[in-house]
């Protein structure tokens, strides 16, 4: 078929059935601009049509939740009038097409979600996944993504405070770039996106509109991306952190002065999305004059202007009396503004160009009437096969050798090659910086602290989506608990393959179940999330990669929060929580030493999880060092403490396999004295001392040698 013969809706990525829905809804054939609007708003990326019916499984009911899923960001109450806003987003496909700009605009987008709520963004976290670094293209992607996050985040003036990184073959042609952002605000600054008040005006603030990423959301993020598929490549969006910085300051001033009724950022589907959502959410309509939009390039069609995904733009709903003041604040911050519409009684969103009507649709229909699919799901055939391949772990191990190999892994070795490219200190809040477990931030002027950890584990989730996803939640909970924070709210990013593959749907549904269950076990509300599907290239789906961003909260914050660099000569080492139980499925040992992936991850006891997490957060007020045991097991976790503290250790004799076992819900505690006061099971296993990592009968390695391997793992590969 030639392009001319392909119906417009198919070219825009819409099915025939969806097209029929549009004609039924309008009672007529859609105009071109209308079709463009529905095609993008009803795309997977904007409408969550394949996942929406399953997302209801997440529970967001806790008394401290102020805004749950549905708005631009979730908001929780921190007491004394303080609120925190958090959100996570993916920019996977754009980052494959152009890693630097793709990642940069991902940061820009997530920040807008935060300051749209009235909050000042104070932190970004990046959760990123690539193919093996042995391939040039993957190094290029990592380099570009990190420089993009750094280039945008640093310049916009929001610190990037941590993240995580994973490498696996199935991400080679489909890297994952998820970014989470956190903001804080005072209660009275909260702004929502529902436009109200007939006659109020819609003011477009920020960048001029150009032909950026037209159809990007629907086409890039909602269909499989074949390499070399030039047709689907939208023009790349270029981020402008300087414009965004001015926009943040201008918007915060507008909120401060109470000048906006509602506000919405422009993301996917640009003006059509922002106008229809503000109007639809408020039960209103809107008349939009497309000619009033300030443009970057001449000759754009109304459809292009409506769909453009130009970055760094916001739509504010303002009372007529306040328009002059809004425009003067915009001009003081040196950003452009134009009045492009007015709120009507509704329900229609009407768009005019040169005096003619180019679109008239029920405003709410773009969001509310989007299709919802209950796609078929099927338990994947690979499961029985991989469960049968139990990891082979010898009884006797040369710990020095094994540890050396693990420390040389780029996902286990020192990741400061990444985090030192990010400003992680701005605002003087960073009490525990990247390089520990969760990062800990103080809230100046209060005794409160917030901790954040992002976590994912695609291999374990592949082996058992439900258990793998649940364990991610518990791990991130422990990562914040070691700072003294109690797990308080979670955002999730569900990165999966093609939902039209029933096995992928099964992975998705199981993962949601595992995460939702784990969150309930530890009373953590899910306040927001993002779904990224169609992550596959050339027909292979990625490993299922749900990612969580956990916010922890403490009040008061410990005076001296645990840090990995606070171990001292003579301090005792305890392990608290579960006993090691032979959990090697998707372990670093199996992946690196055996070069295999098999077995079934252990299930987690919810009651034990609750107890260990609570005990850990309590111990954080007295112990100098707390570190959860995760990838690489006890040996890697102890080595990390040794490297940061500059002191070696001597362990009692332990079964060698226990050194690399990845049984969850275990935490290392280090401190003076010989007894530990805690209600959960614990065991003293050794002492920090000397300059050797001494594993008793399993062997030893000098601190310096081990640290050299660990420090060079990533830089050597990136050179």
């Amino acid at each position: 078929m030639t392009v001319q013969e392909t119906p417009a809706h198919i070219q825009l990525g819409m099915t025939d059935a969806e097209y029929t829905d549009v004609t039924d809804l309008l009672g007529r054939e859609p105009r071109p601009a209308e079709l463009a609007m529905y095609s993008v708003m009803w795309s997977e990326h904007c409408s969550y049509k394949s996942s929406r019916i399953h997302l209801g499984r997440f529970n967001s009911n806790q008394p401290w939740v102020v805004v749950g899923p549905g708005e631009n960001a979730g908001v929780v109450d921190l007491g004394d009038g303080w609120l925190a806003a958090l959100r996570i987003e993916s920019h996977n496909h754009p980052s494959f097409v152009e890693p630097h700009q793709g990642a940069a605009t991902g940061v820009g987008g997530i920040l807008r979600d935060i300051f749209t709520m009235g909050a000042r963004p104070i932190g970004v976290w990046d959760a990123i996944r690539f193919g093996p670094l042995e391939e040039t293209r993957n190094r290029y992607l990592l380099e570009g993504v990190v420089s993009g996050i750094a280039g945008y985040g640093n310049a916009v003036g929001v610190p990037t405070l941590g993240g995580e990184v994973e490498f696996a073959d199935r991400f080679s042609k489909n890297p994952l770039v998820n970014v989470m952002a956190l903001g804080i605000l005072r209660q009275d600054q909260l702004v929502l996106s529902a436009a109200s008040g007939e006659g109020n005006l819609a003011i477009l603030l920020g960048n001029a509109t150009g032909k950026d990423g037209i159809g990007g959301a629907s086409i890039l993020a909602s269909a499989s991306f074949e390499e070399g598929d030039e047709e689907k490549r939208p023009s790349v969006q270029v981020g402008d952190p300087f414009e965004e910085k001015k926009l943040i300051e201008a918007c915060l001033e507008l909120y401060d002065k109470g000048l906006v009724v509602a506000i919405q950022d422009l993301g996917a589907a640009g003006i059509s999305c922002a106008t229809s959502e503000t109007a639809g959410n408020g039960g209103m309509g809107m008349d939009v004059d497309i000619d009033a939009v300030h443009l970057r390039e001449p000759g754009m069609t109304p459809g292009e202007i409506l769909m453009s995904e130009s970055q760094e733009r916001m739509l504010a709903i303002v009372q007529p009396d306040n328009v002059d003041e809004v425009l003067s604040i915009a001009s003081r911050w040196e950003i452009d503004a134009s009045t492009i519409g007015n709120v009507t009684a509704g329900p229609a969103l009407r768009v005019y160009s040169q005096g003619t009507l180019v679109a008239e649709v029920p405003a709410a229909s773009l969001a509310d009437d989007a299709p919802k699919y209950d796609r078929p799901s099927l338990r994947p055939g690979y499961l029985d096969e991989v469960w049968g391949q139990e990891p082979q772990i010898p009884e006797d191990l040369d710990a020095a050798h094994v540890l050396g190999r693990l420390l040389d892994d780029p996902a286990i070795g020192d990741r400061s090659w990444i985090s030192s490219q990010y400003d992680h200190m701005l605002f003087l809040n960073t009490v525990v910086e990247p390089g520990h477990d969760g990062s800990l931030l103080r809230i100046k002027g209060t005794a409160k602290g917030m901790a954040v950890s992002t976590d994912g584990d695609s291999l374990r989730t592949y082996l058992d989506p439900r258990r793998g996803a649940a364990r991610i939640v518990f791990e991130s909970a422990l990562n914040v608990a070691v700072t003294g924070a109690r797990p308080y709210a979670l955002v999730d990013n569900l990165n999966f393959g093609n939902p039209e593959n029933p096995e992928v749907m099964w992975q998705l549904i199981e993962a949601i179940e595992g995460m939702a269950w784990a969150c309930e076990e530890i009373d953590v509300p899910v306040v927001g999330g993002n779904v990224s599907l169609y992550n596959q290239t050339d027909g292979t789906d990625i490993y299922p990669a749900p990612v969580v961003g956990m916010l922890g909260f403490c009040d008061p914050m410990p005076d001296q929060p645990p840090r990995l660099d606070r171990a001292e000569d003579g301090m005792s080492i305890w392990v608290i929580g579960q006993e090691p139980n032979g959990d090697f499925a998707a372990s670093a040992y199996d992946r690196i030493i055996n070069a295999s992936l098999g077995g079934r991850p252990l299930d987690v006891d919810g009651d034990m999880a609750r107890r260990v997490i609570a005990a850990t957060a309590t111990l954080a007020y007295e112990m100098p060092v707390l570190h959860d045991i995760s990838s690489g097991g006890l040996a890697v976790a102890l080595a990390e403490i040794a490297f940061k503290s500059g002191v070696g250790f001597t362990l009692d004799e332990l079964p060698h396999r226990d050194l690399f076992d990845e049984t969850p819900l275990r935490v290392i505690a280090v401190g003076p004295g010989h007894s530990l006061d805690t209600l959960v099971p614990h065991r003293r296993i050794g002492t920090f001392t000397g300059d050797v990592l001494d594993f008793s009968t399993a062997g030893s390695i000098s601190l310096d040698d081990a640290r050299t391997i660990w420090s060079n793992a990533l830089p050597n590969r990136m050179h």
Partner: protein
Amino acid sequence: MTTAVIVFPGTNCEQDTEYALNMVGLDAELVWHRDTDLSGADSVVLPGGFAHGDYLRTGAIARFSPIMKEVERLAATDVPVLGICNGFQVLCEAGILGGALVANQDLKFICKPVTVRVASTDSVLTAAATVGQVLRIPLNSYEGNYITQDSPLQNGDDHVILRYCDTDGSLTAAANPNGSAHAIAGIANSRGNVAGLMPHPERAIESILGSADGRVLFESFAASVSAVKA
């Protein structure tokens, strides 16, 4: 009288700088770059950030902001003037300090604590420190690589006040994070009233943030302000 903290569009360390100035007893006031009057200021700080997005050249556009006429006027008197990171870059572009700052040698942004050695106490920034003192202060820049045409400094009358060093104070190539000529981390003009440095002393103002070594620099600045007033 207050310390004027100049805010350009894209500046982002103004609040952190204000916080540090307050900690040493100075009364900071944020001044927008389009203002034209610094008559109420007894000292001036140009904080870090990305003025005008660092587009064109870092500091290039900011130096023409209306407020810079006032900064130049005060710099020519005894008034203490300090540029931190981007502020240092602006002072160099404006020709108030010599040399220029270009991309780090490995073309990567660097955010990490570094150690610097006090080379001279002859400046508003180092007066209360001692020569040879080693301070642990975070660096946070992409264009922190100091270059000058002549050795050791472009303006014969500027002098080095801080150099990158290792933890025991030795100047080694490995301890020079960005490739700066002569390991220069900070300089001052001949009279010492204008100083600029790439590291961020305001980020090393409290031990809970990892280091309080930046405090002696702010204390120097505060003492210099009082000395001029007296």
